């Protein structure tokens, strides 16, 4: 691992030791530092804490919040809660997958521009169906609004 990464891990470990963390809090902190849970980080932490890597993975795969792969630059969140479902969220989701050319099971586009994820109810049921891109909420979505919204993101130059 490169030294900046090592430094981050050291500080996560120190916080864990000093404030009595747990497997969940370790993983949360690793993810805050790296944006996902890199395999190397798990093995490093496992060696350092003596907690078997399998326990880290057991926890990481249990909770929806942990990502084992790096995520795209833009996060597209499609609400698939009940209210959005009855207002046609599935058709919006299908269109999103088409526009992003995602294969079944694939979440992040090959160019790393977009990650598509589903969530249950974002608390804006009144404007269902809802899609969130990064932190911006788009309500009353329909399949044909998808291309325009995605067009606002994507090939942006790095900020």
């Amino acid at each position, binding site marked *: 691992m490169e030294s900046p990464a090592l430094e981050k891990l050291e500080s996560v470990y120190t916080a864990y030791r000093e404030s009595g963390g747990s497997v969940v809090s370790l993983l*949360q902190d690793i993810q805050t530092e790296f944006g996902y849970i890199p395999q190397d980080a798990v093995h490093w932490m496992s060696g350092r804490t003596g907690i078997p890597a399998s326990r880290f993975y057991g926890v990481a795969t249990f909770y929806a919040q942990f990502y084992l792969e790096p995520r795209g630059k833009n996060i597209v969140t499609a609400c*698939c809660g*009940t209210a959005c*479902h009855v207002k046609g969220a599935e058709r919006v989701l299908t269109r999103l997958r088409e526009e992003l050319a995602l294969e079944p099971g694939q979440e992040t586009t090959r160019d790393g521009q977009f990650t598509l994820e589903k*969530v*249950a109810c974002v*608390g804006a*049921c009144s404007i269902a169906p809802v899609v969130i891109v990064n932190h911006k909420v788009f309500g009353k979505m329909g399949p044909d609004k998808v291309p325009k919204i995605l067009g606002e993101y994507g090939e942006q130059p790095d900020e």
Partner: protein
Amino acid sequence: MVNSRMSKEIVINVCMGTGGIAAGGRDVMDAFIEAFRERGVDGRVEKHCAVHQVGCRGFCARDVLVDVSLDGERTTYQYIQAAMVPRLVEEHVLGGQPVTEWTVGPEYHAFHDRQVKVVLADCGNIDPDRIEEYEGVGGYTALRRILSEMSPGEVIDVVRESGLRGRGGAGFPTGIKWKICADNESEVKYIICNADEGDPGAFMDRSVIEGNPHAVIEGLIIGAYAIGSAHGYVYIRAEYPLAVERLRRALDQARAKGYLGKGIHGSRFDFDIKVKLGAGAFVCGEETALIASIEGERGMPRSKPPFPVFKGLWGKPTVINNVETLANLPVIFRRGAAWYASVGSEKSKGTKVFALTGKIKNTGLIEVPMGISLKEIIYDIGGGIEKDRAFKAVQTGGPSGGCIPSQHIDLSVDYENLIRMGSMMGSGGMVVLDETDCMVNIAKFFLEFTQSESCGKCTPCRFGTRRLLEILTRITRGQGRPDDIERLERMARTIKDSSLCGLGMSAPNPVLSTIRYFRHEYEAHIHEHRCPAGVCRELITYTIDPERCKGCGKCRRHCPVEAIEGQPKAVHVIQQEKCIKCGSCFEVCPEKFSAVLRA
């Protein structure tokens, strides 16, 4: 020119609940601040002028809602966007003339008139980020009085007399839960606020925390005092960033004011609260799974007994209460147990907050007395069904609940009645369905959810939900087998009887209740390969009626797979082999033509 009439107190309240922000609340707020700065309002107004953010106002369908109050005289506006703000400032704030065409109409009042606000009373009226505003409406007075005048036993008696039952789903009497825990000898005890809110169609708990976090904190402190706990937790979803932020700020303020910490307000009672972020698993709302999750492990439930009141977090006696349960407590102590018990039905006291959504005109967060009829909720408060379609059913209790059909619209809503109907209160999601909703599809939707959220510890739930989903899936594809309904019922009963935790025990409810009331829809799918509501993709076809098509070309332009052919002004045709049945054509065909047919 700003004239002398301007030495008024000007208060602007902008709805900044999740719904309000989604509709552009932040831009509206900025626009007010900008407009005041530009016009120098702040400098010339002698009293103060404030733009406040407030939590959910309930009537989310009309967001962004804005109150303009001049010397306490309040006018409420609906559908406000940033671009409309300059006119509001010019004509109303400066000119004194409300912009009547933008004010809320009679529906707003109808929406509120039937409601009884206990938990939501201050949500949307006070700034959740300022503890002084909560104190200004009587906040923390209950706690102070309890600490100086009441013994823990007396506190528990008041809660028992009030009849308060848990709002997290099961409806267990709160006072009794506390009593059992209080009677338990132990040096260390814990109290946990369950803010995991897993129901995928509900947002009550989040809105309460976003709108009035101090009420939840005060409730938690009262509970801790009653059971003798020095350590509290709030277990809240990480997916609720705004609620987490406001909760953390509120805790800091409560600590600074001495409501948390050592020797609270001169008493000998010590208590503090930690925030634990949930990591996204529905089953973690179940109390034993929640405890495992706080302990930092996979959130797997364990069998009960022992119940958490005997053996909970880190093996110590633990009380777990829902957000809304806790938010009721300060009010119960302020207004008295007898008053609280006078609201509601015989066995269910007080009010219940529901997230009213789906095919209804007025969606939003509502608070109603227990025992109110479904009809009042749907027609008086909700304003009836969207597009005046026919009401079909209402889904309550989320993935653990069921659907109540239109013939039972007079049902009075309380814990017992909902269970009798094969549904349950759950946390308070209420999704209204109309004639265009397919009930098999709804059952399948919930099973998809529970199947993917099943933690896998016990076999009936892990395999059972998967099998149920497989059968439902084939039914919606027109491949159902003649005996599938009986098979579903048989398996559902086995899963209910033999699962380890509430998730599995209640997972079959959506299936059982839809079979109970909408068996004919299942039969139409299985025997006739037909989806009566026109929802199940594999069972519908889209065609264009040559008599009605005027060749406007809208459907052709919107079709994502170029399955529609036709020259301008000539009849268009859908090529069935290319059609992916997305329904775009059906939706965009102008209403005056209505040429796209779904069958």
